[in-house]
């Protein structure tokens, strides 16, 4: 039972891990992208559209293409979302919070709209979007996982996207804290004026960080549809996981490697109500607020403690205009 619980917690955590890694990379450049929930929806539906068109048009599925096409469509979708955000906030200097919220409205709308209308729009004769075949390729696991008991169940029974999420988190941490480019990026987030004076291209850094961050976050949506939901898109099925990913950023104190464990914890808190005996439906609803309560407590704790390492990037959410220094 414990192994099963942990395995489910990890599966719940992977979309959050993608989302929070992407958001941390973004926030390190000083952009508070509240559009991440929308980006993740678009990442998910991008993969669905790619897979749907491929499954409809191909006579026989090629395993490599069946994975690559949705993956690229998903990345393209979230890249476009990142570009919209950057163009508005960096080039046109619009307010980040308003832009982010509009991006979320837009992205969730895009996801639900195409999820609900794709079949009608393409004029195909299937009753609903069901991508079990593609999902099968995405969720392929190592064959040895079943033979290794609880160890295999917890650590080896996941699909390649899950390991990619952990790799991305570790890679982002390495990039942010061990490389020169990462140092420059953090400088932009802490004090863009100083970074600018030191000859760092602020706009370029913000664009790159936000777009790459969006693409990473979008993979969370893809993992959710293809792995967790077995290729079945249901409207609003992704739920509030995007906001949870933003909560996880705070919990991980802006360090991607912390969010690996954090995501498993959040994933566990998200589903713990299923594992508590004798809990009625209304009680389950109360348990679902746990991740948010933990985040608030943590946020309050770090702000009272005033530990310097636990604070958000100093210029987070603030626009930067060179002329207004």
């Amino acid at each position, binding site marked *: 039972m414990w192994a099963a619980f942990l395995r489910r917690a990890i599966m719940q955590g992977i979309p959050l891990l993608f989302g929070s890694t992407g958001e941390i990379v973004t926030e390190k450049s000083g952009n*508070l992208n*509240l559009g991440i929930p929308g980006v993740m929806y678009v990442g998910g539906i991008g993969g669905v559209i790619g897979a749907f068109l491929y499954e409809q048009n191909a006579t026989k599925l090629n395993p490599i293409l069946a994975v690559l096409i949705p993956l690229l469509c998903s990345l393209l979708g979230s890249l476009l979302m990142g570009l*919209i955000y950057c*163009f*508005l906030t960096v080039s*046109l*200097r*619009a*307010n980040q*919070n*308003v*832009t982010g*919220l*509009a*991006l*979320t*409205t*837009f*992205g*969730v*709308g*895009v*996801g*639900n*709209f*195409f*999820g*609900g*209308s794709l079949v*009608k*729009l393409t004029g195909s004769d299937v009753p609903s979007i069901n991508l079990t075949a593609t999902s099968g390729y995405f969720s392929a696991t190592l064959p040895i996982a079943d033979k290794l008991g609880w160890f295999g169940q917890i650590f080896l029974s996941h699909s390649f996207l899950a390991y990619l999420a952990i790799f991305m988190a570790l890679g982002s941490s390495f990039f942010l804290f061990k490389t020169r480019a990462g140092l420059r990026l953090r400088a932009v987030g802490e004090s863009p004026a100083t970074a600018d004076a030191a000859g760092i291209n602020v706009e370029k850094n913000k664009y790159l960080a936000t777009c790459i961050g969006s693409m990473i976050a979008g993979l969370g949506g893809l993992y959710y549809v293809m792995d967790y939901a077995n290729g079945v898109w249901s*409207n609003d099925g992704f739920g*509030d996981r995007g*906001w949870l990913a*933003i*909560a996880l950023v*705070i919990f991980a104190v802006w360090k991607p490697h912390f969010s690996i464990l954090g995501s498993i914890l959040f994933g566990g808190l998200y589903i713990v109500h299923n594992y508590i005996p004798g809990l*009625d*439906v*209304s*009680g389950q*609803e*109360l348990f*679902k*607020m746990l991740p*948010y*309560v933990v*985040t*608030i407590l943590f*946020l*309050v704790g770090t*702000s*009272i403690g005033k530990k310097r390492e636990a604070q*958000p990037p100093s210029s987070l*959410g603030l626009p930067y*205009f060179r*002329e*207004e220094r």
Partner: protein
Amino acid sequence: MAEHKIKEPLIHIVKRNRIPMWKTWLIRLSAILVALVVSGLVGFLLTRSNPIRIYAVMIDGSFGTERRIWGMLQNLAMLLCVSLAVTPAFKMRFWNIGAEGQVLMGGLASAACMILFGNSLPNGILILVMIIASIAAGAIWAFVPAIFRSFWNTNETLFTLMMNYIAIQIVSFFSYKWSVPKGSGNVGIINRDTHAGWLPVVGGKSYLLNILIVLGLTIIMHVYLWYSKHGYEISVVGESENTARYIGLSVRKVILRTMLISGAISGIAGWLLVAGTDHTISRNTAAGRGFTAIMVAWLAKFNPLTMILTSFLLAFFEKGAVEISTKFGLNESFSDIITGIIIFFIIGSEFFIQYSIKFREKEEK
């Protein structure tokens, strides 16, 4: 000596000093027009129908029948009410993105009063109790983040955001507790037979009272923000907390007081939604208005009277897009896409109001 030439970039951006009023409105209007063209184009690509017909359907969705006009006005009023709630906080540069939760808590308090006291209190007193409970609930939900922000500088954007989801789960909890039939998770229409706690119908129009109340609130908020001492203090804190301290204002007091007001109005919005509109409560009662309101308030530059216009714009597009999706058999999320596009264009247009673009002038030989 070799001639060293610095290449001047093709375009550069200059901040405008002043811009006449008519020009700002011209820029905004053209942004809305471009947004309309783009939404028409998106609609055309998705439906393959004549763009003119798409616009006709949109207008029909808001103004087609008397019933639709009232429905649109009701949507406008509720959106405006939540926008009024977030405005004082935003003017103070306090990013209260927790209106969704504050509205829900206000609505929950009203629903609780309707269920608990529906049979024991006379209707007039019941409605009064509901107002007080809703205001208190909304205000408390806004006050908690304000305390932490003003004493320990806790990030209010993230705090208020998280409070939304706690509110949603609390409402979910009570939706199951009170559900009819048991276990369905739906509260259903409360006091369907007795109408206890329902707002009275004024002038034969079921939403007229809501609309009048919000109109009154708009005027009060306008006066409060622009012609009162409190309003002035809010602007000062918003412009610069240091200036506020220097002139002897207690920043902490202003933040706490303003957030109480902000939450209280959200509570009123929740009360209007439960007692005057839905007569039920669910986790979707606020329906994302807490977030849309932020955009409404921002687009109107926090001016309550302009907000009537911006909330009309969003209410109109929403109704229109919903009508398109039903007419053409598309998913109703189409309206979210259109809303997103409109907002992108309007916030983008603000750039051209604040800055002007200068092209490189031809070099003279």
